[in-house]
């Protein structure tokens, strides 16, 4: 499978033979994008290593032996797995600027809840849209919209999930925005029509360089999906 590299790969920082921060990733992955946004928010230089998921590298298998998945952040040789865990790690390690988590413990708990909600609900339901057909797909679309509406309701009139500052919960969801065009095309529906405020929030997030430079073009994602679908005969 031809893997196109994103335009926004940050340059290597040589450090006596190796980068301090390495990211094993796959450019269309919404989970990988979360880590890229967090690294960009903090201005962290890192080496991006595109992974071939059909042919997993020894490095990936060594760094994530249990799940064998991307993204994996390798910091000073030590791996950190699971995108939400990685984002929290980045926030706690590079804690001198651009906090990603709210400062109040109660609001932090809320941010964690919503990021966890995205993990539990959004991906699995969206998968149904691109794997099912007919009535099953209609049901999946309805479920997906309902889930998006819950989150739209949570954002409400605020600029971001938890208020004035862009952060953890926004990062968890906004990466799916690059896949919306694909879901809409496959499911023949408009997310903006159903959840206009959510799309407004997404566009607001896209005004941040960390987001706009990370999220691949929606059409590119769609082309990737079609290519993958053809190859895997989905």
């Amino acid at each position, binding site marked *: 499978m031809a893997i196109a590299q994103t335009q926004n790969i940050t340059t290597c920082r040589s450090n006596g033979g190796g980068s301090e921060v390495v990211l094993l990733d796959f450019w269309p992955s919404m989970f990988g994008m979360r880590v890229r946004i967090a690294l960009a928010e903090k201005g962290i230089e890192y080496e991006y290593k595109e992974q071939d998921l059909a042919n997993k590298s020894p490095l990936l298998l060594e760094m994530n032996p*249990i799940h064998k998945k991307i993204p994996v952040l390798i*910091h000073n040789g*030590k791996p*950190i*797995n*699971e995108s939400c*865990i*990685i984002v*929290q*790690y980045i926030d*706690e*390690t590079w804690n001198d600027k651009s906090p990603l988590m709210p400062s109040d*413990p*109660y609001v*932090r*708990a*809320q941010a*964690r*809840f919503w990021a*966890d*909600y995205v993990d539990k609900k959004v991906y699995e339901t969206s998968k149904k849209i691109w794997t099912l057909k007919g009535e099953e797909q209609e049901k999946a679309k309805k479920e997906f919209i309902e889930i998006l509406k*819950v989150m739209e309701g949570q954002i409400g009139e605020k600029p971001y999930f938890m208020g004035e500052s862009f952060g953890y919960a926004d990062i968890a969801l906004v990466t799916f925005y690059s896949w919306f065009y694909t879901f809409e095309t496959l499911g023949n529906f408009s997310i903006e029509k159903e959840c206009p405020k959510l799309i407004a929030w997404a566009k607001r997030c896209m005004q941040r360089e960390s987001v706009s430079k990370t999220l691949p073009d929606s059409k590119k994602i769609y082309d990737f999906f079609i290519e993958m679908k053809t190859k895997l005969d989905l």
Partner: protein
Amino acid sequence: MAKNSEIKLIGTAASPFVNRVQFVLHLKSIEYEFIDENLASKSELLLKSNPVYKKVPVLLHANKPPIPESLIIIEYLDEIYPDIHPILPSDPLVRADNRFWANFIDNKFFPLFEELRRTPEKEGKEAIKKQLIEGSKLLEEAFVKFSNGKAYFGGDDVGYLDVVLGCFLGWTKFVEKHNEFKIIDEVRTPKLLEWTKRIWSHEALKDAIPRNETLMDFYMMLQINRPPRKATSS
């Protein structure tokens, strides 16, 4: 030493997720009111407090909106009472590692228990038992790594993973007995076995461990409300 009594916990004795929160409240000597919930007939309070998932545990703290999800509650309690028996370590890398294993336990290991219950055929059950045994071996390795020769995952005293995994032991023993096999045993998981004895007699957990009758009642309720799948005819 009794602390503020503005904390209420909505839960049920048979839930390991609820037991975790109780364990942490006891470790931190936090006074709280336990609101017993009947999961077969959910109360208005629960449905209002956790409209998204309608599950226990839910923490009510003073007049703040409710906090659901056991792992989120634990981190919240740890952040508002950081000086009394800290649960998560302070080093970001060790924190990330702890969170990774909690994620593994909750999303890969424990769901197998329910899967085992709902799988009707012997062959299916054997396959799941195998997965549980594989999982327990990974947990043994994790224990050896985290404990580093000491008594608990947390080292000299109970930490995050002791709480997260320790509270599943009641159900582990129940499932072992019910299905006539060992998940934790002296040959495959000797260190983990020693740890289970230690954690079960821990002062702060003793009172939260549900009695076998409680687990049996809960099991019977599940059998009725979420019966095993029908066996597929060969």
